[in-house]
């Protein structure tokens, strides 16, 4: 059933493109001549970046897990990290495919089909604007990319400046746990963009000494860490207000945590917190609001 839908989609796409052929490549508004016009992005973070630097019109397909922006959702989906639909990718005749750097096999396959690939490697926070600028050059949108990246850098800098000099509260950042309970807690370690954001926002990551992106901890380790602020990320679906209250209440059982005693448990919802794309700066500002509520009125 699935393949039938894929086949129909591909056929319709090819037909549409075939009809549009006479306009030829390089005539889309804004992109430099010779730039790729049929980009497929399997990496949700990069999809967001592409749309943010104005390269949206050049994108012809995205991954199955893309959620932003709305225009991206209208495009055909070609699978994701674990199972990209290589046949469909090739059928769509892309001139650039964004893949994860670790997917060497996929790159080799696409290379054999004569398709250029761009390997994306997830890194810390600094990697975001660096990748945006690099992407801008790759897709003929260097100027827009520079503008977008500079704007994001400015916002990050603003946060950094305004929280400087303030005491750093011990902050626990949890990005996964069993809903409604404190089991199977995944916290951010000292590596990765989440940890970088906590640091940027002027907090001290309680598990910053662990050199890993993700740390599975138990209630004992959390009680011993005595965080003054708990940031509990939820994504994948929206939470109604009563659900948010319930998730906040789940922390009440650890009554000795300073964060619980002072009511500083923040339930933050949305996947801008876990997709390392341009919306990360919104995430950083939201987290800074929790760690240093007065930061916006600072210098």
């Amino acid at each position, binding site marked *: 059933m699935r393949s039938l839908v894929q086949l129909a989609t591909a056929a319709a796409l090819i037909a549409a493109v075939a009809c549009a052929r006479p306009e030829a490549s390089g005539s889309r508004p804004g992109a430099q001549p010779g730039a790729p016009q049929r980009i497929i992005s399997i990496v949700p973070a990069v999809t967001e970046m592409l749309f943010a630097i104005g390269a949206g019109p050049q994108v012809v397909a995205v991954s199955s897990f893309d959620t932003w922006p709305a225009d991206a959702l209208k495009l055909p989906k070609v699978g994701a990290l674990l199972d990209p639909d290589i046949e469909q990718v090739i059928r769509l005749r892309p001139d650039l495919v964004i893949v994860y750097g670790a997917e060497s096999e996929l790159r080799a396959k696409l290379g054999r089909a004569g398709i250029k690939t761009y390997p994306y490697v997830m890194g810390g926070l600094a990697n975001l604007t660096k990748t945006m600028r690099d992407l801008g050059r790759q897709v003929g949108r260097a100027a827009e990319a520079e503008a977008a990246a500079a704007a994001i850098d400015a916002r990050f800098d603003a946060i950094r400046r305004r929280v400087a000099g303030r005491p750093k509260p011990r902050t626990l950042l949890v990005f*996964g746990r069993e809903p409604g*309970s404190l089991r199977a807690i995944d916290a951010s370690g000292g590596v990765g963009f989440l940890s970088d954001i906590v640091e940027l926002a002027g907090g001290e990551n309680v598990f910053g000494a662990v050199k890993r992106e993700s740390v*599975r901890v138990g209630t004992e380790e959390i009680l011993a860490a005595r965080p003054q602020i708990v940031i509990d990320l939820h994504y*994948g679906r929206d939470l109604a207000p009563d659900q948010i209250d319930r998730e906040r209440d789940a922390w009440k059982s650890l009554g000795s945590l300073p964060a619980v005693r002072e009511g500083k448990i923040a339930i933050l919802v949305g996947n801008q917190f876990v997709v390392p794309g341009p919306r990360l700066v919104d995430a950083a500002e939201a987290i800074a609001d929790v760690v240093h509520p007065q930061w916006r009125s600072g210098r």
Partner: protein
Amino acid sequence: MPLRRRIFLTVALFGAVAVAALVLAPMVGSAPISLRRVFDRSIPFTDNPDAQIFFISRLPRTLAAALVGAALAASGVVFQALLRNPLATPFTLGVSSGAALGAMLAITFPVSLAFAGVSTVPIASFAGALGAVAIVYFLSTVRRHGLSTTVLLLAGITLNAFFSSLILFVQYLADFSQTMRTVRWLMGDLDVGSYAPILAALPFLLAGFAVFAWLPRALNLLTLGADAASARGVDVVRTQRLAFFSASLATGAAVSLGGPVGFIGIIVPHLVRLLVGADHRLVLPASALFGAAFLIGCDVAARTLIAPMVLPVGILTAMIGGPFFLWLLIRRG
């Protein structure tokens, strides 16, 4: 030595080990705490991190480890007797793959089944376990009166394969982080964080244990063969049914409490038989007590070895179980 005294000594010895584990385990952990502060009544509970660590983190997980270890070890003994095969485990007949499917569905799809202080995943996994048990039992009794252990085994293997394929299918629909969390669940986690999940699992565990108390003599006879047992006065079909349901119930409750922790159901019975012989009146209680102590020990290691990170306890049991089996194989050969 008369049997009565041997039973008494065995239970006393293994019981002492279990009690020692129960008492000592909450005293160790990744965070240094002071026992004096823990039991200092003058400090209010919410101001006392040491007490919170002791009573919220360590004590519940020690109790959970004891119950899960006892249940899996004892169920292992019962299943081995029922299937007349020392290689049978509590997971051979499909209970854990049903539980795994239930847990995976709960992790992947946003549905809330929380009830009485117990969150969705344990309830879903228990439901999955019960479903698997029902299907296996139905399959093995559909053709003839009574319970054929061969058909039981085949039904269990079939169900394991079928549920595994369903799990793979759900995995296909899940995103990366959901898959990772399911894989973690499969490795076991005893950090219950409160007494509610323990209390919820307790009635089922106690029901299982109550039947276990009655089974040992009948299990001895069952290992002679169905006819030989019947000829010595055992109601074979009733014994098989009781063994199957009690062990499945205990396993299902244990798996929903702490995940499908492997190897306990087979290492502990083997070790115990090496120490006390084959009589189930010794093996069953000794295995339950030793299983409790063993899992408590593994849990202590799991939460202290790479502190502050917590290892899944199933990894520890596997790391001990693997070499143990190698040794067994070499010893026999």
